[in-house]
């Protein structure tokens, strides 16, 4: 296959988006194969350093998706995630990562079709942006600044 196949990782919460993606399956709605789902208890758990690290390791795009505002299974985890996301955005800019490579969305347990949509749009966007190649920069940053466990 000559066409560029983006690597997309989705960090999703267990209660809304993971369940929503399950519903996409039960409803047999098809979407692009490019995505790999990693389950978290809540978007509040998602550590943005892990997103950075993923870019450093060569992912082309990332989806972060959880419950709608006010619908968080844990009251407010998604708000916290949102708050940190704003800080993280700036870091991304600083690191030269195109913000469009990270898709932040809300997909509830009832939104099977929306999940397929989110995946397909993200894959299309990333396909247009092309492969992510600046990872060395991020990797260097990690060498210098962040020690991970």
């Amino acid at each position, binding site marked *: 296959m000559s066409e560029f*196949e983006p*690597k997309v*990782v989705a960090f999703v919460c*267990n*209660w*809304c988006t*993971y*369940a929503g*993606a*399950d519903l*996409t*399956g*039960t409803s*047999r*709605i*098809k*979407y692009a*194969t490019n995505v*790999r*789902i*990693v*389950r*978290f*208890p*809540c978007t*509040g*758990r*998602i*550590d*943005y350093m*892990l997103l950075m*690290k*993923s870019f450093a*390791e*060569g*992912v082309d795009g990332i989806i972060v998706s959880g*419950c709608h505002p*006010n*619908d*968080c*299974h*844990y*009251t*407010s*985890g998604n708000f*916290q*995630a949102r708050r*940190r996301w704003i800080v993280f955005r700036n870091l991304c800019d600083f690191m030269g990562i195109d913000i469009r490579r990270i898709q932040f969305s809300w997909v*509830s*347990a*009832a*939104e099977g079709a929306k999940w*397929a949509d989110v995946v397909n749009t993200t894959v299309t966007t990333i396909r247009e942006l092309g492969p992510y190649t600046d990872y060395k920069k991020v990797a260097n940053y990690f060498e210098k600044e962040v020690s*991970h*466990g």
Partner: protein
Amino acid sequence: MSRIGVFVCHCGENISATVNCQKVAETASGYEGVVHSVDYKYMCSDPGQTLIKQAIKDKNLTGVVVAACSPRMHEPTFRKACNEGGLNPFMCEMANLREHCSWVHDKGDLTTEKAIDVVRTQVEKVKRNQPLTDIKVPVTKTALVIGGGIAGIQTSLDIANCGHKVILIEKDPSIGGHMSQLSETFPTLDCSQCILTPRMVEVAQHPNITLYTYAELESLDGFIGNFTAKIRKKAKSIDEKLCTGCGLCTTKCPTKKIPSEFNEGLGFRPAVYVPFPQAVPNIPVIDRINCTYYIKGKCKVCEKVCPTKAIVFDQEDEIIEVAVGAIVVATGFGIKQPDFFPEYGYGKYPDVITGMQFERLASASGPTFGEIKRPSDGQVPKKIVFIACAGSRDEAKGIPYCSKICCMYTAKHAMLYQHKVHGGESTVFYMDIRAAGKNYEEFVRRAIEEDTVKYVRGRVSRVYEKNGKLIVKGVDTLLGAMPVEIEADMVVLATAGVANPGAEELAQKLHISYDGYKFFAESHPKLKPIETNTGGIMVAGACQSIRDIPESVSMASGAAVKVACLFSQNELTREPLIAVVNRCAAPLYSTCVGCFLCQSACPYQAIEREEIKDRSGKLIKSIAKVNPGLCQGCGTCVAFCRSRSIDIQGYTHDQVYNEVMALLNEY
């Protein structure tokens, strides 16, 4: 050294039709640490589970990956199987090859590649799993029931009869819900009040039930077995202990012309009122928005006439806090109101009414004492038209679903009309007749065959008024789409049932999910229709989707059983997927620096301070400590901790990090 077993499931053909399961198993067998890798037709079947147990013993497995359906479906199954095979249940992970792979992709190499990737991530994760033990938490054996319609009443009585305490809260002045407004009920045509009232009284008198009417949930904290609910008891302006229910105040109140909610605006009530004569409790409330005293500071007639001095104008809302172990939500449904049908003139022509208004007209205790009369001039309608699916099954109006009960109540209405108005003519415009319950089809046939109700298959386009008649323009699609025009005296709309207006807000307070129409979401549409995704919270009745009485009652009893099951245990076991702050040897004790960022982030106030002292009692450092009873395992704290001192079991840094890296290295 890890010894991992991988089990790839075909799910009949659900997975194997698009994923090459054999290849997945073969590839996995080559991973470092994998000592056993097989594929099998049905992993969750008995022989499938035996396969796992046997392999644990034979191969001395330290971890298991089942590559099958969603963990939301079968994780408990396989963890249990591992446990029975002698492996700690938390040493088992599932790779989702069905919902997230075979069902959403076409057959092909890319799909199989994805399956292989997903299995690899779980192998890397499970290598880093730690054996964990379940957490035990106590159970408060009191249930909170929200909503006092037939569903809430039934569930309260069932739980109470199991010997447990129940707190029932109802937002209106009386319990009874929509059922108390009905005249007679399908499919048996027995009188609604006659069968409901005894149950309402039973609720009021049951020693295990505490009833708060005119009360709403203010907030909810805690978790299964251990909730704390704050309840707002809205001020009734009446001292319930003093009031004897004599009713003097309601008869003497000079403000009499307030449209009665109970009669759907077809009658009036005073400002101090009991919604209907059989109300439970039979204690009035003052409607402060309409009471002259609250508006103008003058009147107080009720206070003067009350023999027991029960009127308290300056009463305030009271907030009480209760500890409960389980919750049943039974808040029912709502009915679409005016302006939704401009083409049918609802809200404009008084003789175009809703089904619920018809119930009130047909009810012996209603504004016309059971006689069917036109609201406009009190005449008995000689020709009546019923319009089914009014608003339902109508994408353009935003309600694509079928409201389920209206076919049946429309047949009932037409029947009641024929019984009450001799020589009257009734026509039902319908699209399909949905009568799939016990004795339902027979009921509809009776309306058509014995009570001569005319059924016309087609939708009505418009209703307008001319010379005191309502002109109904419909169509008979069974006659090659022939336009039909009827001059009717009255039109009844089988208005769409919708979620309760406050449903979304309530769901957010309870942290339960709801669907696109704001009906509360069940945990599984078939196998867990009563539980929500939040442990300890059940749903019953029409708040989950429009339901008729038999269904609401069955669900309510089902919910009661779920609660009783919970209360049959003295302790609950909870998954130990919670946060822990690391501890290490002295002199460091923990990498935690005591910044307590985690504490401020935790939505459950689960993080406490722990003081580490030396032998002499001197404080060495303050560090964070997680209260395992309170922690829900959301992980918010983890993302906040800069020194990586707090971690969440089951989703540790180490696990998640390697899961992702496993993905990227080969992908």
